[in-house]
């Protein structure tokens, strides 16, 4: 599971959908693996508009990538190759192999095993 995935998922519990604390889900005990991918500056530039920046900053901190800019790169900042490289590394090259994603609202833990997160809820939560 690439780290960018965390920017597109939220708690599966219905009641959590309206709560702002259900996004992003919080990484715990994450084991990471790097998978090298060609760096394509334009690709990353066009990925950035898709990103919820506040959410990504939370994720980056939890995974120990502290160096994200405070606000989403726009205009000239999109020309900064180092920023794009950092984002490429974090979003696309970093894979979460083991660990948990935890909802900040209900506390439910979504387990990640061998790179695959399980978002199926136990029957009492459906």
């Amino acid at each position, binding site marked *: 599971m690439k780290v960018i995935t965390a920017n597109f998922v939220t708690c599966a519990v219905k009641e959590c959908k309206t709560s702002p604390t259900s996004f992003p889900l919080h990484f715990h005990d994450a084991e990471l693996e790097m998978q090298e991918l060609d760096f394509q500056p334009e690709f990353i530039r066009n990925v950035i508009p898709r990103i919820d920046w506040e959410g990504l900053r939370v994720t980056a901190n939890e995974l120990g990538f502290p160096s994200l800019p405070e606000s989403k790169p726009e205009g000239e900042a999109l020309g900064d190759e180092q920023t794009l490289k950092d984002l490429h590394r974090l979003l696309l090259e970093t894979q979460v192999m083991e660990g948990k994603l935890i909802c900040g609202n209900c506390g439910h833990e979504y387990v990640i095993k061998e790179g695959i*997160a399980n978002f*199926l809820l136990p029957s009492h939560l459906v």
Partner: protein
Amino acid sequence: MLPTPDTSHVSFDTIYEPSEDSYLFLDTLSSASESKWLSERFQKSSGPSDNSINAVPLVVETGTGSGVVLGFVAAHSQQIFGRQDILTLGTDVNRNACIATGKTVSTAIQSIQHKQENTENNPNLQTVHISSITADLCTSLRPGSVDVLLFNPPYVPSEDLPRLPTAAENDPAVAQAMSRSARFESDSYFLSLTYAGGVDGMETTNRLLDAIPGILSARGVAYVLLCKQNRPDEVMTRIREWGGWCAENAGSSGMQAGWEKLVIVRIWREGN
């Protein structure tokens, strides 16, 4: 005809084997009319770079099975969406299907990239498969995040709708420790999830349709496959009655007594 992704690594004990409906999906999305429609919607602007227009589309397939459909759109994103850079994400209730999909999609992307390496001046395929997650439809996806949603549902009418699997049922260690007969039961159960659709074959599809307005982005579009018993005309009428939504027949196959056996419906916001 664009090549079909390789699924020879997939064990079809618990996973749906690519069939007529899967191939109708491939043919429909890559048809001249549908590719034109999608490319007009998603290709990058040639003028001054506008980030919101050029934003990389997120393509999600729910119930990926072997991953043949998602692998196909990932590998042929240039022909289908008019661009070389999409993000793909797959969901399935069967963990084995998630593993299979990851491999099918990555292999399909790599095989195109490998061909491009041998041809000069070809723009590179940059498409990335971000993950396959074990999930019920799109219930765990962030609202408004999906640009293209694909669903080849369990559409066969059945007396009962199989319940969703538990974490234990999806645990490979549990499956490995099973007796032969328990394994057979478990495999049959997982296969039933791939086809049994409950009343009118629509119980799962209806849940997905209900989620569409919430999950699609402003430019979002969904493709959902229906069979004759699902009454596609009634389903399309119902979608149009949501208000502000369009539904059209994007591709069909197998005429039977004047009816198409399978239909793929395109669903999108009016005026977008």
